[in-house]
């Protein structure tokens, strides 16, 4: 295929879906600014439109760059993003509802961007590089040290900000890409088992049940003896240590978790956001209150309505119909990206596409889930919707790379939504 042809052979379904999502998103950002009480969200849709234009340009450039170039660039950009995260630790500042999170790289009082957003892309590239290096997928816990290290480095830097939401996104990406590389799901469960132990430790019964299940899994998977024993010991240790760990949390952290479990314990404080978000979405009903007409939003009952809680605005104004439309578009985006990964020419490309898909999925799940109190409030943005330049650029950069992978891939023809 000639270079000219390659330009034409774009993955139109993917482009259309991503554009539709972005336009839908900008419409909602516009609406978020339409309030009776002036808020910071007023007029930001214009800058979001600029970011979208920039994002599409970035995507265009990315789609013109060979995947090989990307693979070659992986090491430097990964190292660069780590460096930026380190710098952010020292020159970081908070913003908006997440004022305590030093996520913004700020030099001379000017906020340049959020390096964590860039790191999401570079970690995907680096993980893809590491995982595609071997023909055989990791079979034991020890084999996982390389990919684990790739994620752990930026993860620790981000948790130090501390940005729990982005940290969750990295872990999601890690597991998603391991799955795609062919790691047995059983092993993945074993890897995750200490965390599961931690979550279930609040109830001795749940934890005991989980512990029995874990033993069964260990016997079933037959890892090395040392690994199996250390896994069991780790779970046991966490189960025992959990109360102490809980005690060691700062009171506000404990409070946040408790409010997540039951928002009504703090209606005026921490539970306020999620209750108002649920009220907004629930009051939207089937058809919604109408574009820009949501009263919860208009009267500033919704927190961070143009960023973290943009989906609550959507739910209130566009109703269940609008929610279904948005979620369906997201589902198509993910399925299409998985399709691209399936047809990718090489394993690196395939891993990269899946990495982006997983990243989006985690963001969607955590953000949308948060608006319904299915997930704790972690200040994680919704791709293509939440107002914010860095994430818009990162998302469209990912779209551009996936487009490139698609056109290089097998059967990369313009076609129907063949998903």
């Amino acid at each position, binding site marked *: 295929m000639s270079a000219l042809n390659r330009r034409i052979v774009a993955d139109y379904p993917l482009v259309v879906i991503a554009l539709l999502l972005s336009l839908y998103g900008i419409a909602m950002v516009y609406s978020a600014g339409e309030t*009776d*009480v002036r808020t910071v969200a007023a007029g930001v849709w214009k800058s979001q439109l600029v970011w979208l234009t920039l994002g599409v340009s970035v995507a265009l450039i990315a789609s013109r760059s060979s995947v090989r170039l990307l693979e070659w660039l992986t090491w430097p950009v990964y190292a660069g993003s780590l460096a930026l995260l380190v710098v952010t630790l020292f020159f970081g500042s908070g913003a908006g509802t997440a004022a305590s999170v030093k996520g913004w790289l700020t030099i001379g009082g000017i906020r340049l961007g959020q390096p964590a957003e860039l790191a999401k892309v570079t970690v995907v590239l680096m993980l893809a590089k590491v*995982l*595609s290096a*071997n*023909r*055989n*997928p990791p079979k034991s816990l020890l084999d996982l040290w390389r990919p684990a290290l790739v994620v752990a480095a930026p993860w620790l830097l981000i948790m130090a900000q501390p940005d729990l939401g982005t940290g969750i996104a990295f872990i999601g990406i890690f597991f998603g890409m391991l*799955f*795609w*590389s*062919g790691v047995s799901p059983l092993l993945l469960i074993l890897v995750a088992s200490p965390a599961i132990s931690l979550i279930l430790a609040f109830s001795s019964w749940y934890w005991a049940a989980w512990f029995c299940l874990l033993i069964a899994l260990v016997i079933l998977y037959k890892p090395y003896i040392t690994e199996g024993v250390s896994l069991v010991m780790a779970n046991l240790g966490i189960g025992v240590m959990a109360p102490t760990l809980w005690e060691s949390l700062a009171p506000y952290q404990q409070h946040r978790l408790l409010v997540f479990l039951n928002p009504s314990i703090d209606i005026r404080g921490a539970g306020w956001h999620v209750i*108002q978000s*649920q*009220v*907004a*979405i*629930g*009051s*939207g*009903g*089937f058809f919604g209150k109408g574009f820009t007409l949501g*009263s*919860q939003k208009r*009267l*500033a*009952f919704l927190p961070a309505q143009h960023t973290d809680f943009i989906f609550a605005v959507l*739910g209130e104004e566009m*109703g*269940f119909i609008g*929610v*279904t439309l948005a*979620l*369906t578009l*997201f*589902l198509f985006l*993910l*399925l299409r990206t*998985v*399709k691209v*990964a*399936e047809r990718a020419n*090489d*394993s690196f490309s*395939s*891993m990269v596409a*899946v990495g982006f*898909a997983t990243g989006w*999925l985690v963001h969607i*799940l955590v953000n*949308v*889930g948060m608006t*319904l109190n*299915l997930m704790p409030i972690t200040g994680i943005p919704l791709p293509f919707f939440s107002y914010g330049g860095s994430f818009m650029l990162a998302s469209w950069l990912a779209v551009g790379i996936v487009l490139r992978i698609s056109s290089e891939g097998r059967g990369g023809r313009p076609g129907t939504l063949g*998903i």
Partner: protein
Amino acid sequence: MSFHPNDISRRARGAGAGLAVIFVALLAAFFRTQVLRNTQYALQSEENRLREVPLPAGRGIIYDRAGQIIAENVPGYSVSLLSPTADSLRASLSRLSGIVQLAPEQIEASVRRYRRAPNRPAVIFADAPFDVVSVLEEHRIDFPDLVIQSAPKRYYPDGQVVASFVGYVGEITEAELLRKEFEVYKAGQQIGKGGLEREYESKLRGQEGMRFVEVDARGRVVRDAGARADLAPKAPEPLYTNIDLDLQRYAASLFGDSIQGAVIAMEPRTGGVLALYSAPSYDPNRFIGGIPQEYWRQLNTDPRRPLYNKVIQGKYPPASTFKLATSAIALNRGIVGLDDHMPVSCTGGYQYGSRYFRCWEKKGHGNLSLARAIELSCDVYFYQLGLKIGLKNLLAGGISLGFDKRSGIDLPNEQRPTFPATAEYYDKRYGPRGWSNAVVLNLSIGQGENDQTVVNMAKFYSALATDGYAATPEIVRSNPERTRVLDLSPPQMAGLRVAMAGVVSGRGTAGSAVIQGVVLAGKTGTAQNAQNRNLDHAWFVGFAPAEEPKIVVAVFLEFGEHGYLAARIASKIVSRHLKAATTELIQTEG
């Protein structure tokens, strides 16, 4: 990674299935929240958005029998503040106090009202003077949460003339709010505090309307109107009374500023109260929107006790007006006839045991028949009559005539008269040997352990004026209620009426109260005053015209000294009423 196409497509299928499950689960969660629980959340969202601003309703208009207004509503203004918290209310109030005068008590009262009903605007001025309203309107822009609205205000055109029966209204107190009967009331609302306003509170209370204003998340008013359609306040049906406002005004004017006492005029056959006045009175209009402290102190320290309703709350010895009861009991028992004489003639007193009981007429009345004894109010005659009846029967008779019961007039706080039910009362009060049969002598002339309200005496005389049925006094028109208390033959009844007519004639004790062309029948009384022996209370209870009574009047003058003074007032009221009634009759015929 294992990059065999088969492995890849297997994982792609797995991923696709996983994604589908995740998104279906998410959609299900949204379906539950948005569709299944929509009603609950929609309601919550409306509650978030809207604050209710109550629109006070006018109270029911009270009319007299001719359709003249006794109580109405006039436009007034109330000022209140919508606040998200008590602290912000306090802050706004202190800012407001820089513009209008606000006493610290007023601020505290507003904060208390807010605490009682945080979702309602906290009332600052229930009845704001016009200058305050205009100043606040000028500063409207600085206080977006200020609610200035018209609030109908109670007005009594005749002011203190009608206060005795109409009462007044005021803001519901915290103690009242705790009571079960007022559980639907909210802090800051008006409630009847006395008289008809209190008695008929449930009928007079209007249905509060509701205006909705839109507020933002911090409770600041964003939009004032149109958030939702207003609910208009509803005024209740008017209250029609039996009061004759002209007569009421006239009765009040007879007392003037100097005389203290009570008067009630009613129709004997229905109990319809034509006039009810306790002197001195107070101006209920000054009570609206908060009683000025100065006025309140003045009313409470006035020795003439303007707030004390002497018609239904004051209890006084009925004195000679009770002689008709003694007579009726004796006639009923067949102890005497109207023409019967007593063994001992009146020589100005009567010796009973070791004690000498005086007649009011020191010169003595001589030998009298019962009818004459009533006309001249001879005490000596009634001492002997009482002895003939005996204590037990006299007490039983008094009970059956209703002297131990409230009249049942439709006003709150009526006092129950004092009348011993049996002789045990004396045992209890004075000890079994602490009293003698001499109490009968006192009782028979309306003294002793017998304290009656003015209204209850009027009720008893309504039985004398008719066929023996006492009518329950009734201010608001409803169903006349009559109970038979006198079991006398028509000639006996007629005889008593003739005797009472004799009282108000040249022959009787109230000769100066004669009305030209009308026979007024009644009985004077001069009650010994426990507080001041020199200043007796004066009574007159009677009815007219004697042959076909249309009006019963009871007049009581505190420290009035002579019964005939009371009779003169009664006579003026009667003649005014009967002339007016005659004129009315002619008009209807014409």
